[in-house]
């Protein structure tokens, strides 16, 4: 789990870097603000909170996932191909620098979703969701050079809220089910 959070933090840092480069390239200053925000919120605050809650819930190892490692790698590869296949007609018209960013963002979103499907632990599903947000964020800055500021800040604020609330629910699950393994939560059927 710890390794997962660290990779998420690394991904957010890279994202902030791309944002900074883009801000420099287009010269609009409010993207700098956004890059800074990504660095602070996604790079530091959220991983810190995740590690803190993991300690509290004493969640160490992810028991072996539903889909084996080789299978998930293959599927992720497939998803990347699908993402490129889908975005191919869209980006033929866009300018050069952000040409394949949309494809990458779509790929990250799909892989994030796949990760939520293939892992058992609730925390991992949260991290999967955050990865989808990251992919999404990449899509935002690459295709539209930054949405109106209030919307950006609103989205950041929502992501933060979502993580906090999921943390609370994860704590509740741990309290009632003594495990974070969502495969045990199958009582509501039919």
């Amino acid at each position, binding site marked *: 789990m710890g390794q997962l959070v660290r990779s998420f933090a690394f991904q957010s840092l890279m994202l902030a870097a791309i944002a900074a480069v883009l801000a420099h390239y287009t010269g609009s200053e409010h993207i700098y603000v956004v890059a800074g925000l990504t660095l602070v919120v996604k790079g530091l605050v959220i991983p810190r909170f995740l590690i803190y809650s993991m300690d509290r819930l004493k969640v160490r190892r992810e028991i072996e996932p539903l889909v084996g490692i080789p299978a998930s790698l293959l599927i992720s590869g497939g998803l990347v191909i699908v993402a490129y296949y*889908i*975005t191919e*007609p*869209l980006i033929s*018209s866009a300018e050069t620098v952000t040409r394949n960013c*949309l494809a990458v*963002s*779509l790929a990250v*979103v799909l892989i994030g*979703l796949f990760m*939520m499907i293939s892992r058992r632990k*609730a925390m991992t*599903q949260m991290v999967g*969701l955050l990865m*989808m*947000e990251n992919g*999404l964020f990449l*899509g*935002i800055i690459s*295709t*539209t*050079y930054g*949405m*109106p500021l*209030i*919307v950006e800040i*609103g*989205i950041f*604020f*929502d992501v933060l*809220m*979502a993580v906090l*609330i*999921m943390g609370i*629910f994860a704590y*509740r*699950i741990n309290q*009632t*089910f003594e495990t974070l393994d*969502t495969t045990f*939560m199958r*009582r*509501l059927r*039919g």
Partner: protein
Amino acid sequence: MIEALLLVPLFTALLCGLARSERTIYVLSAAGSTVTALVAFPCCYQALSGPPLHRGPWYLDPLSALFVLVIVVITLLVSVYSVQYLQHDRREGEVNVKDLRYYHVLLHLFALCMLLVVVVDSLGLMWIAVEGTTLISAFLVGFYKKGEAIEASWKYLIICSVGITLALLGIVLLYASSMAALGEGADTLDWSALRAVADQLDPALVKVAFIFIVVGLGTKAGLAPMHTWLPDAHSQSPTPISALLSAVLLNCAMYGVLRVHILAQAAVPGFSSSLLTFFGLLSVAIATAFLLTSRDLKRFLAFSSVEHMGIIALGFGIGGPLAVLGALFHVVAHSLTKTLMFFGAGNVIQRYRTREMREIKGVGRTMPATASLLVLGGAAIAGSPPFAIFIGELLITAGALASGEYLVAGLFIALMAIIFAAMTYRVLGMVSGRPQEGVPAGELGALRLIPMLVLAAAILMLGVLLPSALGDALGSVAELFEVII
């Protein structure tokens, strides 16, 4: 004026949070929703008759006015109903005063977020409001601290967040498609601006954007196959909340889809309507299967919501004056009827202390008033004529026949007949026969019956006559869909 509309629920939520005794909380909550309603009616009337109110971030056009009315009315009825519902829970000892305060704060914040969704102009802010509704209602779904409630709220949270994230990607792509037409300007995310330039949007981007929106917001609206969270959330949450979820939250999500459908219809005519028709029919079909086999009363009503959301999507998908009028009428009819059914179910469940329909027998004997209202509601929700839902379904069928889609109309009618049979079987099964021993007779409270009577009268009246005010309102909303009634 619109700010006032938003501030009142916020203010009520704060007051409920601070109030000391139970009685004040109930009074405050009911008063708050009444004031919201009083504030909402004038501005909706103005939006429906005159030009849309567009000030700052707020944008109130006929479509949003219609949804505001639905939200406000249903919230009022829910808050009145939940007074005695929670009192009963208090007596049963399932809920303490802190939970009570917690419930009412969240209830009004939930109403605030939903109003925000339909009032705001920019699609980004709308997304934020929808995300807000999910987060707040997750707590409401998990209100009872039982294991199943936690599981239901977790699934609700995760699935809806995934859906909304995909929807955001859709909005982004939509925004990207408008780059070419509107240039760099900051306000390009406002719906009114996009509406003006809708036909110059880049078709390829709009198509992909609409797919993301339908799958994303469709999850929130409960369209099959993304509806899986709906039965769990509805069956575990307290009944007034599941009424609010079913009747209003699903509509707000559908409101988002409709906003983008209007744009997509102009940019890529025909693409979005065929998608909506596909999802509509799929939802109705899957809901039919579940209605035939589900045994839990609230899950049963949840699947009926999936079915009716499918019908609304089908109505907009078919297009044409009749079908669009039918779908708009169905939005109103479904909200009213579904709330009535949930209130009836609430009474029955609290009296029989079980949600298993096979164990509920003889409601006609123990609670005659609720039983007759349940039978009326059951007939209404199943789509039998003297009630409003039938009018919606009839107009949609007529629209389908008018636009020559005979297969769609035929399939639709067949599914409706099966659903009618399944629903009446369940409702009659509960109401007739002899109740088991140990179930005390007598209604649970007079106050709860008032909202139910109001709803029953409304759907009966809407079923037979169409008041001119509502007629003109629906007409003005339909103009948005380039359809003249």
